[in-house]
């Protein structure tokens, strides 16, 4: 919210009509509640990021390094040389505007610089002015501009108002990937030490301890023990997960957030119950203890460094293949980058379900399977006994995570699972799901608290579609397959759609899963009474 500055006698004279100005002539206004706090010096130094210093976004002077201009231009040159896509995206946009109104941040904020085309122009204008002949000669006429500290501020402000969700790319006739442009923008600002704390903290923790929360092995195992206790009280069955076990068939890797953040914890309990019921020969790792990769929101090199531990641990433990939990950006990284960064994983086998015999050819390169594919295959082959009636208190809709839907084409598997474990499933309107899904509004490391206002604006288009199915069908549960969604959509629903809760698909599986030897269930995974058991609970 902007600060209240009008004097009483000015209140009646407010001119609401904004002045018409070209975007280049509209200076950036760094507004509180729209940005995340800067990174801590120690976190940047942990991973050798340069120019770590104390600075404040609200200050006039950002204490840029003395040769900041050279750093940025050299950096841009290097990126243009390294990534052909970046060069192409800088050159081919014809500014048709097809992407302009597709961004959740533009729709929610109303800020024209959140139109993807204009956000990209922030970078293109500098590219033209410094790397193209026409731009150098014609300057502003050619859409070029000079690099100034104000431009750097504008980059930082707006590239941290993009969640790299790639919805705009679906509508671009040239297929320009705005996420890659934002990645380049973030790489460049990172060169100047302009990183945010909510990203740099997890990156440093992951680099040192293996996960974003900086959890040490004993903390991980003891928190899983808490799940084991809760599962026993619900089902009467004590599941027995193993950690760092050499010779296991499968290594399981999932986002660490699900070990501690509600409601993701219930999804993690679902994994434990499912694997126990299957008698799966698998192990958790307390070293490769993070599926997510916040390094992906800083630089390509950092993402690669953090990702390396997954294959390294798989090799150390001697597993045959890797199974991954529900997550969004984790899967874009694993699906599209891991093989070329840290592969080939020729020491692993092509994943094959030990229960159904299904060979996951789609994971032939990475040797890592998404748990939604794995579970959908189990259901398809009749390997699970399910009682969807246990989810009858829930009217469920499904939010496609940006990265799993647009990044890896996973559209049907989670729906297939949900339809088999729930009796009441309702889709949101067509233009808001599948490839056209709206972002949660808090991805790419923007899920901090200090920018809650930005998150609520960016989350509005998604929440608006949820509101529709809530009013039409009485939907009260928003399912998804992403840890960040589970963490952030809870706040979004609380603001826009109070009463709608959030869960992972495997929480619903856990509710419906009939386990061999279980006691009669009276509670769901949240320890709340199942439908029909409310009276018993209150006695």
């Amino acid at each position, binding site marked *: 919210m902007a600060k209240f500055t009008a004097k009483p006698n000015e209140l009646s004279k407010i001119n609401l009509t904004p002045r018409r100005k070209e975007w280049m002539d509209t200076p950036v206004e760094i507004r509180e509640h729209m940005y995340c706090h800067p990174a801590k010096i120690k976190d940047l130094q942990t991973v050798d990021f340069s120019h770590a210093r104390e600075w404040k976004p609200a200050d006039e002077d950002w204490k840029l390094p003395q040769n900041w201009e050279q750093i940025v231009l050299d950096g841009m040159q290097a990126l243009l040389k390294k990534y052909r896509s970046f060069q192409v995206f800088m050159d081919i946009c014809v500014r048709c505007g097809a992407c302009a109104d597709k961004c959740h941040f533009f729709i929610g904020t109303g800020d024209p610089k959140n139109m993807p085309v204009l956000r990209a122009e922030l970078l293109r204008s500098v590219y033209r002015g410094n790397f193209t002949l026409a731009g150098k000669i014609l300057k502003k006429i050619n859409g070029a501009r000079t690099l100034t500290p104000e431009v750097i501020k504008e980059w930082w402000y707006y590239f941290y108002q993009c969640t790299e969700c790639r919805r705009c790319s679906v509508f671009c006739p040239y297929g320009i990937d705005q996420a890659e442009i934002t990645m380049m923008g973030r790489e460049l600002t990172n060169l100047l030490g302009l990183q945010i704390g909510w990203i740099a903290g997890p990156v440093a923790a992951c680099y040192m301890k293996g996960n974003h929360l900086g959890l040490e092995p004993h903390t991980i195992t003891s928190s899983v023990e808490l799940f084991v206790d809760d599962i026993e009280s619900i089902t009467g069955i004590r599941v027995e997960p193993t950690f760092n076990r050499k010779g296991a068939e499968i290594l399981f890797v999932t986002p660490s957030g699900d*070990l501690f*953040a509600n409601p993701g914890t219930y999804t993690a309990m679902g994994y434990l119950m499912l694997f126990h019921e299957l008698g799966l020969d698998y192990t958790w790792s307390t070293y490769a203890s993070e599926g997510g990769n916040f390094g992906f929101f800083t630089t390509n090199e950092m993402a690669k460094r953090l990702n390396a531990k997954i294959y390294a641990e798989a090799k150390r433990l001697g597993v045959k293949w890797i199974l991954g939990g529900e997550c969004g950006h984790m899967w874009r990284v694993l699906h599209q980058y891991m093989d070329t960064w840290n592969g080939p994983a020729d020491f692993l086998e092509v994943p094959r379900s030990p229960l159904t015999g299904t060979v996951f050819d789609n994971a032939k390169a990475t040797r890592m399977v998404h748990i939604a594919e794995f579970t959908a295959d189990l259901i398809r082959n009749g390997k699970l006994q399910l009682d969807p009636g246990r989810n009858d208190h829930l009217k469920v809709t499904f939010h496609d995570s940006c990265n799993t839907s647009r990044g890896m084409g996973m559209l049907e598997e989670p729906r297939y699972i949900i339809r088999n474990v729930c009796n009441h499933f309702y889709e949101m309107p067509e*233009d808001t799901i599948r490839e056209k899904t709206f972002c949660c509004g808090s991805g790419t490391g923007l899920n901090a608290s200090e920018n809650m206002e930005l998150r609520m604006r960016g989350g509005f288009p998604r929440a608006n579609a949820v509101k529709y199915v809530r009013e039409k069908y009485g939907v009260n549960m928003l399912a998804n397959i992403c840890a960040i969604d589970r963490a952030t959509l*809870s706040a979004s629903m*609380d603001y826009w759609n109070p009463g709608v*809760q959030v869960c992972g698909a495997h929480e619903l599986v856990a509710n419906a899963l009939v386990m061999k030897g279980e006691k009669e269930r009276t509670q769901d995974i*949240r320890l*709340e009474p199942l439908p029909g058991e409310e009276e018993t609970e209150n006695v």
Partner: protein
Amino acid sequence: MDLKGLLAAKKDAILRKWFDAVLESYPADTSNFLKTKKNRFANPVGYSLTKGLEALFDGLLQGVEIETLSPSLDSIVRIRAVQGMAPSKAMIFPFLLKNAIRGELEPELRGDRFSGEMTALESAIDALALHAFNIYMQCREKIYALQAEESQRLTYRLLQKAKMVCEVQGEDPGTGSSKDTKK
């Protein structure tokens, strides 16, 4: 014809004027999008404004209790409370209806014929604005509450493990439920 009849006859024109005036609080490129894109899911802000303003207008015309207009007010205020506007700008929209009516009915409102009814209507609009401000404050307070609740939710199991949470009768930060659960 009384004032209500006049307002009903000119409803579309008044609503258009009101809507346009509200949209002036957005940049030109944005207001054009909000005005022209009709799909309720592609343009949820424009849709919410259109539907909300119409419902408020109808309610005022029918003379319903202001409290019954809360859902319509909420659908507009909840958006504007997080759009970075100063409170005075975010909450100006009820008052803009006065301008829209006076602008559209300018010839008819000359003289004293409708002055009594107009005073009553403008008082109702003022009451609407005050009620809108209540909702605005609830939204703002909710934003700050969300920040606190989320930090608890994100570290819930760590707090539990450190025995910093205990069983109480109340709301669970993890689920938002009001069952006898953990906090």
